[in-house]
């Protein structure tokens, strides 16, 4: 055998070079001096911070399948959190974009209830009066027509398909930003003749798919030609199930009154707040309290809020998954501590202090949870992209959410590791080594 004495110097040198280095034991520095004197100038045991993570990785790498399975719970929890936040953010972004394109400057004016609770009516002069307000870009009215529309004259009267017939001002599309799927909207010319425009749902219900004037429908005992079909109107969805005819022809054939049922007002966006309180007085100077004003954009914003109400529920579910994942890690770590008693004993015999053992096991739990959290964050982001793509949305996965998710996983891991780590640290060395 070779000489061992030669090595005595090299090891002494190598330990000597580290004395200035930082150590994991920052506590108890004050009392070190006295105890060092008692032990003849011995350095207390210490572990370099740089050694902590390799040590933790070793513990996990030794049992890779177990590490993988115990990290799955945290991964699922984090993936749920990220996906819920990502999908709801994407959906909100989509709604905001929708609201932006439609504009939030549309107001609807309708008759409310009068003092006795009866339905009030707007005066016929209301649209004209409203249009005279300086900041109003356009105001268009629709009004009731006491007639029903059928595909032809052989349909039983009861089969109304719940389609409402309105007369409409010719500038209605401009006010509500309605677009036509086919044909044209009513013009001052066609408004005087039996011509009509169908809302999107009404056209489907009647089975009308073209508006080139070749299709006629049976409206109030008269044949009307379909000259236009609307696309769904996002800000005025009540128009989707209507048949719109001109005011003159409505008056001529059905004696429809000039009192509007609803007035769509498009105002200068910057002055919307100023315009809104003026509308009741302009619409019905005699009884402004009977006029009801609504902001259709509110409905879209309410839809966004409704989506986030479910978000709370799903976040809670993700939190529960995370909790269960953390308990799973703690469980696996406790078993690991039992199995690794000899290793713990050897480390204590080699001079490890209880806190070195504790740090090792907490670091293992943190590493495990952080790996699970990172995988979960990626999976949650991927789920968001897939879901958004299926809805033709732009996916929104905020970076802070991803970082926070991994941060939460680290906290869960640290908490899960505390109890197993303390059990490991408090293990009596002689018992761990079976020396009793």
């Amino acid at each position, binding site marked *: 055998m070779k000489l061992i004495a030669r*090595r005595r110097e090299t090891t002494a040198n190598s330990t000597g070079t*580290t004395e200035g280095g930082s150590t994991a034991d920052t506590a108890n520095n004050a009392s070190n001096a006295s105890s060092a004197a008692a032990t003849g100038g011995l350095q207390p045991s210490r572990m370099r911070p740089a050694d902590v993570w390799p040590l933790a990785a070793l513990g996990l790498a030794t049992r890779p399948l177990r590490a993988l399975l115990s990290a799955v719970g945290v991964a699922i929890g984090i993936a749920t959190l990220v996906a819920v936040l990502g999908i709801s953010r994407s959906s909100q972004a989509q709604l905001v974009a929708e609201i932006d394109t439609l504009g939030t400057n549309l107001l609807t004016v309708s008759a409310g209830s009068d003092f006795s609770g009866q339905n009030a009516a707007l005066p016929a002069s209301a649209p004209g009066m409203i249009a005279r307000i300086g900041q109003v870009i356009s105001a268009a009215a629709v009004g009731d027509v006491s007639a029903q529309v059928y595909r032809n004259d052989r349909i039983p009267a009861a089969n109304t398909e719940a389609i409402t017939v309105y007369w409409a001002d010719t500038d209605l599309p401009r006010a509500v930003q309605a677009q036509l799927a086919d044909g044209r909207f009513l013009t001052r010319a066609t408004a005087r003749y039996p011509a009509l425009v169908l809302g999107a749902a009404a056209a489907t219900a009647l089975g009308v798919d073209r508006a080139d004037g070749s299709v006629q429908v049976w409206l109030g005992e008269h044949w009307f030609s379909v000259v236009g079909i609307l696309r769904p109107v996002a800000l005025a969805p009540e128009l989707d199930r209507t048949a719109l005819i001109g005011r003159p022809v409505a008056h001529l054939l059905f004696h429809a009154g000039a009192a509007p049922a609803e007035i769509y007002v498009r105002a200068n966006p910057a002055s919307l707040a100023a315009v809104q309180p003026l509308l009741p007085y302009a619409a019905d100077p005699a009884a402004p309290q009977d006029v009801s004003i609504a902001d259709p954009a509110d409905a879209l914003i309410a839809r966004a809020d409704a989506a986030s109400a479910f978000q709370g529920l799903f976040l809670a579910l993700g939190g529960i998954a995370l909790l269960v994942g953390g308990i799973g890690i703690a469980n696996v770590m406790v078993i690991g501590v039992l199995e690794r008693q000899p290793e713990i004993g050897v480390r204590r015999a080699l001079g490890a202090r209880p806190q070195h053992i504790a740090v090792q096991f907490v670091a293992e739990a943190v590493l495990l949870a952080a790996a699970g959290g990172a995988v979960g964050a990626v999976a949650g982001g991927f789920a968001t992209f897939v879901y958004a793509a299926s809805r033709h949305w732009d996916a929104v996965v905020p970076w802070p959410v991803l970082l926070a998710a991994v941060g939460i996983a680290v906290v869960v891991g640290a908490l899960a590791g505390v109890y197993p780590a303390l059990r490991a640290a408090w293990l009596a060395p002689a018992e761990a080594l079976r020396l009793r």
Partner: protein
Amino acid sequence: MNVLELIDVSKTHAGSPRAGSYPRASAVTALHSVTLAIAHGEFVAITGPSGSGKSTLLAIAGTLERPSGGTVRLLGQPAHSLPDRDLCAIRAAMIGFVFQQFHLVPGLTAVDNVATALLYRGVPAASRRRAAAEVLADVGLAHRAGHRPAELSGGECQRVAIARAMVGQPAAILADEPTGSLDTAAGHDVIALLAGVNGRGTTVIVVTHDPDVAAAAGRVIRLRDGRIAAGGDAT
């Protein structure tokens, strides 16, 4: 100077209060007022029948266990009364352990297992491995440095474990049945290795059943029922 002095040391293991152990274990006295002294550079074998307190004596000598009563002086330090922090420092710097079951860390290569002995002294990783590789070469396992314990024979594992005990330059190496899991040839290798370490000045204390180890030792302390039957006084 004596490496180890035990004066009137006794050890009583409390009865297990844990549920599930039935009949409930009553308190067991493993050592009865043991007094012995081991001088620097001795090679001492501690023998005795099973249950005679050999392992308890080794655990107390190695500061892994505190005595119930009596005085333990290790390298002049009052080990029975020092706080745990100081005992850890003593173990890290002055004592090497060898166990019957080797107790190597399964996920680490031979050289990294040896290097672990310097982990709790704050030695940087590169220096640890360098020192470990040298000691591994000294025990004749340079060619096995990159192998994990599962790839080594029992004799090789025990030589790695002895290298781990040696790498910190301890004043004393404490071994618990180091040949107990080995065949005769591997056992002889281990005895020769321990004798060689002892020959260069390190005190070696071995708990053993193996007559070959006892024959190699300079002194044999016999324990019986927790008391010293022979060999308690330094020669």
